[in-house]
């Protein structure tokens, strides 16, 4: 199995409970993927600090995770509590979690 390199950027608007959950959920996902041999980089951007980035990405709602690499770009909005949904949304192979 080839190793893939995912670059995910999580946009939050301040450290709200939802943002906290999103960070936790995404970190857990990255850890699990790492154990499957995938490489996942996570970058967290607070748009309250960098509003221009929100504009550039045309972000409407937070938290939102954007798959920057590999293309195509994928976005999932919410606290990322439903892992299935996140994996489908980010188009990350879910077969790696199959037993």
């Amino acid at each position, binding site marked *: 199995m080839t190793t893939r390199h995912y670059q995910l950027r999580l946009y939050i608007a301040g450290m709200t*409970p939802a943002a906290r959950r999103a960070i936790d959920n995404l970190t857990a996902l990255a850890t699990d993927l790492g154990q499957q041999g995938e490489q996942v980089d996570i970058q967290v951007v607070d748009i309250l600090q960098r509003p221009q980035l*929100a*504009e550039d990405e045309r972000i*409407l*709602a937070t938290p939102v995770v954007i798959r920057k690499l590999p293309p195509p770009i*994928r976005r999932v*909005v919410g*606290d990322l509590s439903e892992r299935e949904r996140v994996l489908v949304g980010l188009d990350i192979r879910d077969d790696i979690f199959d037993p």
Partner: protein
Amino acid sequence: MTMAHPDTAATGIQGLDFLLQGGLPLGRPSVLRGGPGTGKTIIALTFLCHGIAQGDKGVMATFDEAPEALIQHATGFGFPAEQFVREGRLQILDMRPNPDDVSGHAIELTAVMTRIDHALKTTQAQRLVVDAMDVLEGAFATDTHLRSELGRVFDWLREHQATALITVGEQDNFSARHGLEDYVADCVIALKQSLEHRVMTRLLRIVKRRGGAHGTSEFPFLLDSEGIFMIPVTGSVLSAKVSSERLSTGIPGLDAMLGGNGPYRGSTLLFSGQAGTGKTSMAAALANSACQRGEKVLYVSFEESVDELLRNQLSIGTDLGRFTGTTQAGQCLVLMPVRAVELGLEEHLMRIMRAIRKHQPDVVVLDPISSLAGRHREDHAKAMLLRLIHLIKEVGITAIATELLADDSQGVSHLDVSSMIDVWIKLRRHEDNGEMNRLITLVKARGLPISSQVKEFRFTPQGLEIEDPYMGESGIAYGTNRHALQSRDEQTLVQLREALSQALRQREELDEINAAAERLARAERDARAMAIDRNIANLERRLAMIHSAKSTVSRSRL
């Protein structure tokens, strides 16, 4: 506007600003709601661009239409939106949801606010439009927190002190459901469309206006390629400027009928008549003479096209075409052809008023106003015409209207607008001896000494001429008949005069004859008397002779 509330931001839509007593509440959020196609985006854009044109800066967050489309709309209404964007005075935030976004739970709309906040700060905008906010619901349908999130947005807007206009669709009572109207917005404007007689009318209503009175009626408005236009039904200023200046109609005979100098400036004239009685020609003649004086005329033609009108009037000597060119002072004669069937009554009214506002004419011709009444319920048409005439009168413009009377109307007007008419002239046909003549009667003329005589008018190469009818032995006569009668009567006169002089001559002759006869008789009498006298003398002499002879004989016998 004199009644403007101090804490308002004008929308630039005159009628709306009037209803809002100056504009939207300054530094507060207002909601504009309405179904699809009611004109929310256009009104919001106008509010924004009007402010920018006045020196404000503006931000528009669009959830529905593409920024390019909005710039196109604004440019269409005469705002240099692209230039606004280049100069940093207008920023458009593309808030259209990404259809590929996968949404989950616990969504926060802080990003919307953050982006708007960022834009407001970088542009230092005083005005904000959030267009089609209800789209958020469609995009994040799973989220039940939308209501509280929206409440947060409005609270934040109020803190921000930008004058904000948020438009929302009517889908499932979006604004009511989320409590926008009751709690969060300081001013709520509702738009809707009503369809009547297969004609669509747009209506606007001020639902709520915190800290200010507002009219509760629905006000019709116009929305087309030239932007938005509305006239408040109520609240129009009632003091029409009254002028004592008289305006010549250009037809000496008509001026004479109106006391010598024509009607007052700013008065309303109505020419009523059946088909072919010369209403349009009368109106055109008046327009022509106004143009000759250098006044501006707006000619609203409901039946004839521009070319038809110019050609038809030229054929009877009224050359209106020479005034239609653009001069330094603008166009002297603006011809506005309107197809009566195309639009609803309100739309007609507003289009005419908008044209008046645009061209600022001295004289407005409405030819014929009856074509508006024909297709609509008559009471509606009457109400609309009354308003139209009132609005025109209000701005001190002389109005010339024509009214087509049906052939079976027996000359009775059905428009019932005479209360608004200052000078009412009836034109009719007089058919007699296989000929049609045109007659003109002054029904009323407020404040003018008027002629009560029915006159005749004719089209001559020199224009319209009004003539007194012929009153002869056998009554009043018009047209050729009048000429025939006139010449017949003249012949009779000649004959009579001849007969009279003949009789006088005879009389004189008779006197002479009598005198001569008398002389003759006297001569005869004298001659006879002389003859008798001679005879008497003769007889006496003979008697004397005999007598003397007898006495001589007797003396000798003695």
